[in-house]
């Protein structure tokens, strides 16, 4: 049984078929690359998996449970976490507290429990370690408005990790980084995969995806194109067609 199993999902926004009958599986301890041209429906797939939008058809199973109708917060509690393509920092909190809030999520499972817990030092320590880990420990106390986009992207990776997810969804974490930064962060992402954690990595930087992922899933125009070993995907004519087709259109 796969860790995540998306089956035959479709979603339509107004006149746009953003995703059409797509199936996708992520195994335990897997780093799965997810690529596709602009507008392929990658972000939409991630939003379907997280429960931020409901598919009009199909199902999502995680850890053997059918979560198609679950709310975002319950999916997070079950072990999903994401860092979105468009950054969503909490602007009124420092980078440290953005991460600490996620690190203490277990204190906030219900309001009463949250009311009875006061100590934030443990969560802040965890947050400090995670920010060090993603390489921005030097700007702990800055607010999101005071740092470049690349820092916020990393903070959001740390914030997602703080939730201790079984499956981490990353939507273009390398966007906006220069080559060395992208390489460093890609190595770090590769190191996140453990027996208890898988990663689904949406990326436009195909070079880095091919370098760190052993398996790649390709989506085009809302449909599944292929899923295979990285080298086979990279060598396929269909992939080149998909990316070139973008220009033809």
């Amino acid at each position: 049984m796969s860790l995540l199993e998306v089956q035959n999902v479709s979603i339509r926004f107004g006149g746009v078929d953003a995703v059409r009958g797509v199936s996708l599986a992520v195994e335990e301890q897997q780093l799965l690359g997810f690529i596709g041209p602009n507008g392929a429906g990658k972000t939409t797939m991630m939003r379907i998996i997280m429960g931020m939008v409901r598919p009009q058809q199909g199902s999502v199973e995680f850890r053997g449970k059918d979560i198609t109708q679950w709310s975002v917060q319950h999916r997070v509690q079950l072990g999903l976490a994401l860092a979105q393509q468009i950054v969503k920092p909490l602007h009124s909190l420092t980078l440290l507290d953005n991460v600490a809030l996620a690190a203490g999520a277990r204190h906030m499972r219900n309001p009463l429990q949250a009311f009875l817990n006061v100590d934030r030092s443990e969560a802040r320590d965890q947050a400090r370690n995670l920010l060090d880990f993603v390489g921005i420990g030097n700007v702990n106390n800055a607010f999101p408005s005071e740092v470049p986009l690349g820092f916020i992207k990393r903070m959001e990776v740390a914030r997602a990790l703080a939730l201790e997810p079984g499956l981490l969804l990353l939507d273009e974490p390398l966007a906006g980084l220069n080559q060395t930064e992208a390489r460093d962060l890609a190595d770090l992402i590769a190191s996140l995969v453990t027996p208890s954690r898988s990663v689904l990595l949406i990326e436009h930087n195909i070079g880095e995806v091919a370098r760190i992922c052993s398996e790649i899933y390709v989506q085009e125009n809302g449909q599944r194109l292929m899923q295979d070993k990285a080298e086979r995907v990279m060598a396929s004519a269909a992939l080149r067609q998909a990316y070139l087709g973008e220009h033809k259109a």
Partner: protein
Amino acid sequence: MSYEIAVLTSMSIAILFALSLNLITGFCGQVSLGHAAFYGIGAYVAAMLTKADLALPIALIPAAVMAGLVGVLVGIASLRVRHDFLAITTMGVGFLFVGIVRKQDALGGEIGISGIPSVAFGRPGLLLLALVCMVLFILLSIYIRRSWLGFAFESISDDEDTARTFGIDVSKFKLLAFVVGTAGAGIAGGLYAHHIRFIGPDSFGFVESITVLAMVIVGGIGSIAGVAVAAAVLATLPLWLQFVDDYKLLIYGSLIFITMRFAPTGIAGIVHTLWQKRQAK
């Protein structure tokens, strides 16, 4: 002496009332333009009960419970609306309250309730009770601010969709803010009824909702100290300056506008900035 006692009582009640809204609007980020309705519910419940010979400190409990219950209902109804729509919904609740009370003969209808009994130990007794309630609510606010509940409120106030991605059940937290905030307003209302000793539907109308919102905004949305200071000052202005009493809506409305436009962090924000400048020197 009795004048000072009356002023201090007004101040304490206003601080309690403003901090109760601060919990909903300041901590949790949910705007309310109808908070006076809950103040009114507390006032009517407490007044009816003390007229039936219950002691005020005990009557304040059902006053809080009733206001809190209605607060939950309004909260549930408002869960799906945000920002401007929430403001309009809560404003509607404010008008609804006045509209309903006007038509209830049991509540004195248009005329209201007079002859509300005085409290044991008279005016000083009421002041003491108001002070105790105010201090308890301040302590509760400070504690919530420090707890994970306060942290969760902060995240919801900042961006509730992002708060959900931390696994926070936003609806439950919002409802809790509504319950505690409206129950606090209920207690403030019960005290107010026994301070003025006459209440009518118009004591809890739109003007009062705007007044309490002005206290929160001018003080600095979310700041306990700022809101308390603003509440104390704004509650006593009409006592000293007759024209403030005559033009309440105009003056408080302008205060909200000016603060939002030129100093959105209110008194607390201004003091904080000045303090940082001093430190920098």
